[in-house]
């Protein structure tokens, strides 16, 4: 049986239902991300696990014990907030020690654990500093240490990186992931940033409108989105309308061109319309080795974004976005150039 089980969780605020029958089974030591736009209910799910919201229906079970109705203080759950939420009147050591003092741990044990936690977050010399003397990244690491000090069964992270600068965000997310793997602590991470979710998690739950749209590994979520919402929310992509030509052999027509599709056509009748998705980075311009499919296009715009050069190309009525790396060897495309976009048949996703 799984370590943390959410079954049929429902949360209503007045007449609006923000979480509709949410189910999730998390293994011990797993890192799960709840990913979705604001208002999708991801934070509400997290707050129900923490005990700050009481579910309108459903159960929360940790390690076999039903904690659905327990008060936050009675749960053994650590929480890190977006706003760093360190106690401003206490120094770093006292912040980390807070939960242990509440639990009446002996002073010597507390001190040892504080030292251990400070080493873990790589801030061994900052024990006497006050929160206002720390940078945002340091504060968030202390908040993490404070939550971990009491050895919680589950660690909950509520957008802990959102308030930080871009560069610190990237380095801290790598640190958090390393720490989580080192301690083997079961972790639920809430974020609206797809890159964070994909890079940190064992599994990602993509949420929309209070429901889980898809649960899977980052690779599955990104490369095999099940719904249109998942496809468009996780990464940018070209969404195109196509006609089914020969479902048995996986052939569709895209802007008048025959295109071979690896899967997803079984349920569709011939000459039906369908939506297909193509990721901008899956397209290759005039490659040396031709791929299974090729679409002749005309370049309508070239945007230099730094590492990536984004090319917009017209194919019939469709405008396709193509990403290429800015490399010295690469040809310099310009508006009006005629090109062929190649892609493999398994890069094209037929959406439900």
């Amino acid at each position: 049986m799984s370590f943390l089980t959410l079954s049929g969780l429902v949360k209503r605020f007045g007449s609006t239902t923000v979480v509709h029958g949410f189910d999730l089974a998390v293994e011990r030591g797993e890192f799960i991300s709840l990913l979705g736009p604001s208002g999708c209910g991801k934070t509400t799910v997290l707050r129900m696990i923490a005990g700050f919201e009481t579910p309108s229906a459903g159960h929360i079970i940790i390690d076999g014990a039903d904690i659905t109705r327990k008060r936050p203080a009675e749960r053994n759950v650590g929480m890190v907030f977006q706003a760093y939420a360190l106690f401003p009147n206490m120094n770093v050591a006292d912040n980390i020690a807070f939960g242990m003092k509440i639990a009446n741990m002996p002073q010597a044990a507390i001190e040892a654990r504080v030292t251990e936690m400070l080493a873990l977050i790589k801030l061994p010399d900052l024990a006497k500093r006050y929160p206002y003397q720390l940078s945002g990244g340091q504060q968030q690491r202390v908040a993490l240490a404070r939550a971990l000090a009491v050895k919680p069964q589950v660690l909950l992270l509520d957008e802990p990186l959102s308030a930080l600068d871009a560069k610190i965000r990237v380095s801290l997310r790598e640190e958090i992931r390393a720490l989580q793997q080192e301690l083997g602590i079961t972790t639920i991470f809430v974020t609206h940033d797809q890159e964070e979710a994909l890079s940190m998690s064992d599994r990602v739950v993509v949420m929309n409108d209070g429901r889980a749209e898809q649960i899977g590994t980052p690779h599955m979520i990104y490369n095999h989105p099940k719904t249109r919402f998942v496809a468009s929310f996780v990464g940018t992509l070209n969404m195109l309308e196509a006609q089914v030509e020969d479902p048995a052999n996986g052939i569709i027509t895209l802007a008048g061109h025959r295109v071979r599709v690896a899967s997803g056509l079984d349920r569709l009748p011939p000459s039906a319309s369908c939506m297909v998705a193509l990721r901008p980075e899956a397209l290759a311009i005039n490659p040396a080795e031709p791929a299974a499919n090729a679409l002749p296009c005309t370049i309508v715009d070239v945007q230099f974004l730094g590492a990536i050069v984004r090319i917009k190309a017209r194919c019939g009525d469709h405008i396709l976005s193509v990403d290429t790396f800015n490399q010295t060897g690469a040809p310099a495309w310009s508006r009006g150039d005629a090109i062929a976009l190649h892609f493999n048949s398994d890069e094209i996703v037929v959406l439900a």
Partner: protein
Amino acid sequence: MRESRIGAWIAMIIGTLYFLLPLIATFEFSLRLKRGEYSFEAYRVVFSDPRFRDSFSYSVTQALATIAVGLIIVVPTAYWVRLRAPQLRPLIEFITLLPLVIPAIVIVFGYLRIFNSSSLIPLTDTSLGTDALLMFGYVTLALPYLYRAIDTGLQAIDVRTLTESAESLGANTFTILAHVILPNIRAAVLSGAFLTFAIVIGEFTFAALLNRPAFGPYLQLIGANRAYEPSALAIMAFLVTWACMGLMQLFGRGVRMPATDTR
């Protein structure tokens, strides 16, 4: 830019004169007890009056009691409203503003009516009971200032996240209030306390109607019967309140003073 700056400076100068001129005039007058020379004679007379010392210490005691009771009522209420019932804030603010606009006379009449000798709680029968009644009146009077100060203090910290952090670390409500919330709104609490102190020291209507030997009625009494001493008293009252305000500013602006113990 320049035009608005000049206009604003003029407005500010007028504003300052508004307060300074009466003060200077009063001070100048208070020095003229002895004919033909400036002296602090009026102050000496005031200080040597035992009624001055008695009434002043009575009012100080009243002020301290008012502050204690006021804080016990206001801090948990303001905290709870911010945390659990933010939709009630307009209502609470409205209630706390009431004493500003209900004439003091209404409140006192009402209290006298409820707590007189023939009522269920005959507070006015004993001197201590009347003192208590006066103190509760002062709490009412101080409520708007105390609530605003505490609420502003709570606004400056993230009450909800701090509370939830502490809760998930196992703390109960009392621990949260005592060790997480209060230490972080110390400046606001002190500022509200000093303001309350200043208000109670200068109050007249309540004390007079309840016939208590407070500083306000003494001020009035001297004002009606003497010429120069009232000015001296007024200046002294001003200095006391000024000191209170100064302390308020000091604590309001002061650096965060950390507590070392967390339990």
